[in-house]
C-alpha cells in the first residue's frame, strides 16, 4: 500500500483499485485522496510569509551572526575573519565581561525564585470566589503589562534615587536612606525588585493551573482532616509542578535577556562600577556604541549556549521534582 503515499502528483488512482470503477468514480476517489493528503501546493503558498519570516528574519540572521562572531566586524567597514579571537579575548582578558556575567547571574538567580514564589502566592489568594475578584486580578497583572515599558524604568530611577520616593518613605520611620541606584552595593537589587514586582505573567499561568486542580482530591483531604498547609504542600504544589516548571524555564530565559530596565535605570552606562551591567546591555554597548559587532555577536552566541545549558539542566532536573499525572 505504499503507492498511495508516493504517487500523488503522478495522477494515478488511489491504491491499485481492486474492483473495477468507472472513470467518474475514479476521479471522485482521486479528488478525495488529494484532499486527504493535504491538497497539493497551495497550502504552502499560505505558509510562505511564515517561511520568509523564519528563513529571512531568524535563521539567516542567526547564521550570519555566527559567522560575524569570528570576524572583527565594526558595522561600518567590511568584516575580516579573525578566527576564535573574540572568544578567547572574552574569557581571558575582558574584565567587564566577567562583571556582566556576575551581575546577570545574581539577577537571574535571585529574581526568578522570588518572582515565582510571589506569583504563586498571589495566584492562590486570587483563586477565591470573592466579589470583584476580576478587578483584583487585573490590578495585580497591571505591572506586567507595563513591564517592558521604558516609562516604568524611568519611574524606578526616580523612586530609588537619592531624593526619591523610597527614601521619603523611609524618612517617615526616621531611617536615612541612600542613593540606591548609584551605589554599587544596592543598584542591582533595585533591578531585581523591579523584576519581582512584575510577577503578573507567571501569576496568570499559575491561576490557570490552579483552576484545573481536581476538586475531589481536596474534598477527600478535608474529610481526612488535612489542614491548609498540608493541603498546599501535599496536594497543590505537587499537582502544580508542571506549571512551576514551565514558568521557571520561561522566567530564567527572560531573566538572562533582560535589557530595558538595566539600560534605562543606569542611563545606558551599566554603572556604577558595572554593577548593573546585565549581559544584554553589555552586548548592546559593544555592538552599537563601541562598534565591535563581531565581538557582540560572539557574546550573543555565548549567551545562547548558556541559556541552552541552563534550560537543559532545568529539563534534566525536572525528572526528579516534576510530577505528571499520567
Amino acid at each position, binding site marked *: 500500500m505504499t503507492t498511495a503515499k508516493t504517487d500523488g502528483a503522478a495522477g494515478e488512482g488511489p491504491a491499485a483499485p481492486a474492483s473495477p470503477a468507472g472513470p467518474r468514480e475514479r476521479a471522485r476517489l482521486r479528488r478525495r485522496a488529494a484532499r486527504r493528503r493535504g491538497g497539493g501546493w497551495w497550502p504552502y503558498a499560505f505558509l510562505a510569509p511564515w517561511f520568509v519570516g523564519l528563513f529571512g*528574519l*531568524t535563521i*539567516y*540572521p*542567526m547564521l*550570519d*551572526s555566527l559567522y*560575524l562572531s569570528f570576524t572583527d566586524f*565594526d*558595522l*561600518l*567597514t*567590511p568584516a575580516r575573519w579573525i578566527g576564535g579571537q573574540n572568544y578567547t*579575548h572574552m574569557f581571558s*582578558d575582558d*574584565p567587564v565581561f566577567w562583571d556582566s556575567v556576575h551581575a546577570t547571574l545574581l539577577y537571574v538567580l535571585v529574581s526568578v525564585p522570588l518572582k515565582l514564589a510571589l506569583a504563586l502566592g498571589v495566584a492562590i489568594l486570587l483563586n477565591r470566589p470573592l466579589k470583584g475578584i476580576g478587578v483584583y486580578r487585573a490590578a495585580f497583572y497591571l505591572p506586567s503589562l507595563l513591564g517592558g515599558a521604558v516609562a516604568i524604568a524611568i519611574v524606578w530611577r526616580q523612586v530609588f*534615587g*537619592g*531624593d526619591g520616593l523610597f527614601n521619603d518613605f523611609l524618612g517617615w520611620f526616621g531611617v536615612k536612606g*541612600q*542613593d540606591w*541606584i*548609584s*551605589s*554599587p552595593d544596592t543598584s542591582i537589587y533595585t533591578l531585581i525588585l523591579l523584576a519581582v514586582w512584575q510577577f503578573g505573567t507567571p501569576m496568570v499561568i499559575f491561576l490557570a493551573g490552579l483552576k484545573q486542580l481536581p476538586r475531589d482530591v481536596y474534598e477527600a483531604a478535608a474529610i481526612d482532616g488535612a489542614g491548609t498547609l498540608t493541603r498546599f504542600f501535599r496536594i497543590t504544589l505537587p499537582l502544580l509542578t*508542571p*506549571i512551576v*516548571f*514551565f514558568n521557571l*524555564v520561561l522566567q530564567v*530565559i*527572560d531573566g538572562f*535577556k533582560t535589557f530595558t530596565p538595566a539600560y534605562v535605570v543606569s*542611563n*545606558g*552606562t551599566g*554603572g*556604577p*562600577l*558595572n554593577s548593573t551591567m546585565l549581559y*544584554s546591555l553589555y*552586548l548592546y554597548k559593544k*555592538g*552599537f*556604541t*563601541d*562598534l565591535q*559587532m563581531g565581538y*557582540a555577536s560572539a557574546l*550573543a*552566541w555565548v*549567551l*545562547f549556549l548558556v*541559556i*541552552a545549558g541552563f*534550560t537543559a539542566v532545568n*529539563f534534566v532536573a525536572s525528572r526528579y521534582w516534576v510530577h*505528571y*499525572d*499520567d
Partner: protein
Amino acid sequence: MGHQISRRTLFRTASGLAVAGALGPALTACAGGTGAGSDNGSLTMTWWGSDERHAAYKKALATFEKNNPKIKIETRYSGYDGYFDKFNTQVAGGSAPDLLQMDTALVAQYARKGILAPLDSYVGNSLDLTGFSKTLLAAGTVDGKLYGVPSGIGVNQLTVNRSGLEKLGLKLPDREWTWNDLKDIATQVHKKSGGRIHGVDDGGGSTLQCFEIFAREKGQPFFSDDGKKLGFTADTLQEWWEFWASMRKDQASPPPAITSAAHNDLTKNAVVIGKALFTFDSGVYGAGGSITDAQLDFLPTPQGDFSGAREGNFVNGGVLLSATKASKKTADSVKIMDFFAQDPTAIEDMRLLRGIPPTEKARSLISAGLNETDRRNMAMADYISQRVAKATNALPAPVPPPKGADQIWDLLFESNLAVAFGKKTIKAQLSEFFDQAQNILAG
C-alpha cells in the same frame, strides 16, 4: 489513541517552543550588513542638541531653503544619548544622513573608516572658510584632510554658581587660579554652608574637562601622537587621584553616589541639584542655555602649583558639520556648511548654541544681542583662547582621539568611582587602569 497529547508532552512541547521563541531574537539582534545609499530626492540632515538648538537650526534652515529653492532638507534631531548609536546603524543599513552634526571627539574615527567625505576640494570654491584659524580647523582635520567644518570655538571652562557663592559671602576666584585655590574655595563652600553644599563636583574621573588639562600642564598629552598609547604617566594619574581623594575627605567634593548618579545625566549634576557650586561639566550651560535657575559665571580650568607648569588649556572646534561619503548630495551639503559658517542670518540664529562663533566677524555680529550669562561665557572663552595663543610653553592641540578613546574615558570615570567607593586602593586601581587601557588601545 496515540493522538491524545499527555500533559507531559504538552508541557515539554510548550516549553521547547517557548525556548526557541525566546532565544531567536537574542541572536538575530546582532546581525547586520552593509547596503547602498538611498536617494529619495531631499537631503537628510541630523543633529543632536537641546530644544533651543533645534529651533535655531530649523529657523536658519528655513532661510536657506528660501534662498535655495532647489534643495529640500529633511531634518532629524534628538538628544545626544543614542545619537551615534543610531548613526552607526544607519551607516550599516545604507541609510546614513547626507549631512550631520559631528562630535570633535569622534570625527577621526569616522573619517579613518571612510564614512565621511573629504571637503578640501570645496574649500575656497563653494566653501568659504575665511576667518577660521588654523588651530580651529585642526579640530576637523584628520591625517591632513578636512572632514568637518567647526561650528565655533570650544574651550574647557568651569561653570560656577555665582549667586550661590554670593549667598555664602564668598568671592569668585581670580581667573588666574591654581588647583590649590580650587581646593581652598571648595572647602570654604562646605564650611560656610554648614555642610549642606560641597564645593566642586568630583573631577577625578572627568577626562576632557579636567584631567587632560592637568596632564598637559605637566607636558603630557592624553594620547601619544600615534594614538596607540596613553601619553601620561602613572605618577601623574596617581597625583590626580590623590588630589581628589583629599577633596572628598575634606567634603570639598561630594560623595561617590552623587558623582555616579550624574554619569550621563546632566539633570543630576551636582551644581544642578544644588550639592556643589563649581562643575567641570560644560553641559550645565552650553548648547541652549542653562538647566539651573542659578546665575552662572565661568572660569578657566585651574592650573599650576608646581614648578615648570605649562599652559594646559587648548582650543577645539565646538561641534562640526560633516558630510557622508556615500551621499550623492555632498555639493548641496557643502552649501549648507558654507551657509552656517558665513551667512549673517544663520550666525545670528545660532548665537552661542553651537559654541562661540568661529570668526571675529561672526562674534561681533552676535555680541550685541547676548544676555548677560552668554556675554560672560563668550568673554571667558575669548580670554582662554587668547591665553592659549600667547602661551610659549603649551603642547600642540591634542591629536584627534583614537579608536577606543571613549572606552578609556569611561574607564577613567569608573576607576575613580571604584577608589571613591572604597572598592580599590589607588595603587591597585592604577595598575588595573593602565592594563585595561593598553588592552583597549591594542584591540
